[in-house]
């Protein structure tokens, strides 16, 4: 495989996985949580790079800690999930920057961890992303029913006697795994776009949950391919190109739905009585 083919493959796999898991994230309104994870895992990535172990491993370790901290803060009175995400996001980022500054000879550029470099992903990175995708697919096939129930009717789910936290933990775990596997390619800042944009576009295009789970990965993979091609054609950074392609899909979907909502085939309102005529 040439480096370009490998980048293509990585873009397809990571785009598809991001789109798939992104559906759960967007529907359950955990986008800010995922955003905090992407930023918060930065110190883990820096520490892993400094220690010479694989970057996803460090990011995964950091994400476990972050999930615990965020769940803890979110339960404190007067604080809540948004505050928890904000604190973890800024704290994690600052810790990463301090680590990057005091570790004298970091083998990788800190910037490449921030915006990613899809042209230098390894086969292992692609394999990890594919593995996350397979696990996500399996879990959704196995527990899809419970996930849908708890997502769309939280109160009903609890009232029916189910426990909320296993589903929440499952989705948070999948989110963290996706973020970690996307880090090498698109970096800490841009990873959230691959999770949010395809799913949001799919949500506009389709009206069913299953349809969304099919359309979002397709949009994600397409964004990856087109983004990598655009990056070569215009000589721009690949990560931003992928993000902007995914954004373009969302804008097209949004524009399409707005256009469809316009009264194209305006028919005259039938007037039967004098009262109707007065209102019309």
């Amino acid at each position, binding site marked *: 495989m040439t480096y370009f083919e490998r980048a293509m493959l990585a873009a397809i796999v990571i785009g598809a996985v991001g789109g798939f898991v992104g559906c759960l994230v967007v529907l359950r309104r955990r986008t800010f949580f995922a955003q905090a994870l992407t930023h918060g895992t930065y110190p883990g990535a820096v520490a892993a790079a400094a220690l010479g172990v694989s970057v996803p491993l460090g990011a995964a370790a950091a994400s476990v800690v972050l999930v615990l901290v965020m769940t803890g803060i979110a339960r404190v009175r007067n604080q809540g999930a948004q505050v928890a995400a904000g604190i973890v996001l800024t*704290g994690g980022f600052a810790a990463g920057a301090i680590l990057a500054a005091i570790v004298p000879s970091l083998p990788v550029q*800190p910037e490449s961890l921030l915006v990613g470099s899809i042209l230098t992903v390894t086969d292992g990175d692609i394999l990890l992303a594919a593995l996350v995708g397979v696990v996500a697919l399996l879990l959704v096939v196995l527990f899809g029913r419970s996930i849908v129930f708890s997502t769309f009717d939280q109160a009903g789910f609890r009232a029916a006697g189910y426990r909320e936290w296993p589903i929440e933990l499952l989705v948070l775990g999948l989110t963290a795994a996706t973020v970690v596997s996307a880090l090498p390619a698109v970096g800490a800042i841009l990873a959230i776009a691959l999770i949010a944009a395809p799913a949001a576009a799919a949500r506009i295009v389709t009206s069913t949950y299953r349809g969304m789970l099919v359309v979002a990965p397709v949009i994600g993979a397409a964004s990856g391919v087109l983004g990598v091609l655009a990056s070569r054609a215009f000589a721009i950074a690949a990560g931003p*190109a992928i993000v902007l392609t995914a954004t373009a899909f969302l804008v097209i979907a949004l524009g399409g739905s707005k256009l469809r909502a316009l009264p194209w085939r305006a028919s005259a309102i039938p007037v039967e009585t004098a009262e109707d005529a007065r209102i019309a």
Partner: protein
Amino acid sequence: MSPADALFGAFSLPFMWRALVVMLVLSVIAGVVGVLVNLRSLEFITDGLTHAVFPGLAVGLAVGGASGVLPGAAVAALIGAVLLTWLMRSGIASDAGIAVVLTAAFSVGVIVVSKSDDYAGALETLLFGRVLTIPPSDVVPLVVVSAIALLLVALTAKQQVFRAFDAAGSRAAGNSAFALDLTLNVAVALVVVAGASTVGSLLVLALLVVPGAVARLLTGRLWLLFPLAGVFAALASWFGLAAGFAASVGAGIDLPAGSTIVAVFVVAYGVVLVGRLIRDAAVRRAQGRPTAPGEAKSSVAASGEGAA
């Protein structure tokens, strides 16, 4: 180096003194604005705005040089504020929409910056700031921009608080929800503009999020939140600058100033959080277990639901 040296002596150096003045102005104003951010749960929008100013900074720098940075950032932030206000109200997957806006804006910025020579340097400056090397000519515009933000919030504070606690009541009383949202978002955007070009977008986000959260932990009284957040932000900025100075000059560890200040903010938040939890536990014990275990669990579940 003694603690007194770091806390007081360090600021006799002109660049440290300037950094302290800038940080105090920014942190007090951001703390006050941040209380409203906290009450309205606008943390994610704030994060979006800190990223949205990036293309403005990059384009401003490319077009007008150093003097183009502030106008560029201001234009980008105002566009961002209007766009995010509209997204928030349209209700279509609003948090996903924010995420897309912020990463798209950031991507545009990265592409613009990557066309310039000093790519890595510009990205780092934007994210982590250059607290200690703020040029003297930047201080006045910064103070003016953040003063406008404070004015916007001060003029509408009562209505904003009303809207935060009773959105329907506020609308019924004749307040325009869109105007209030836009005013607050513009105020946040202005604080972000003032901060992003000087102290870095990461630091601005911390300034806007952490003091408000700390104030909420410290008191339940509404109008105490604002002074508490301001005082906390000022103290944490001061200690953060002093800690960074002590580490760099005293111990020879080259800590980045902006990140050190953020770290002090977050650590202080952690201390206050733990203190609050201990106090709550003590109060519960002093009351002689007034709540049965089952009740306690259900109240936790309810607060968890409110958070989600």
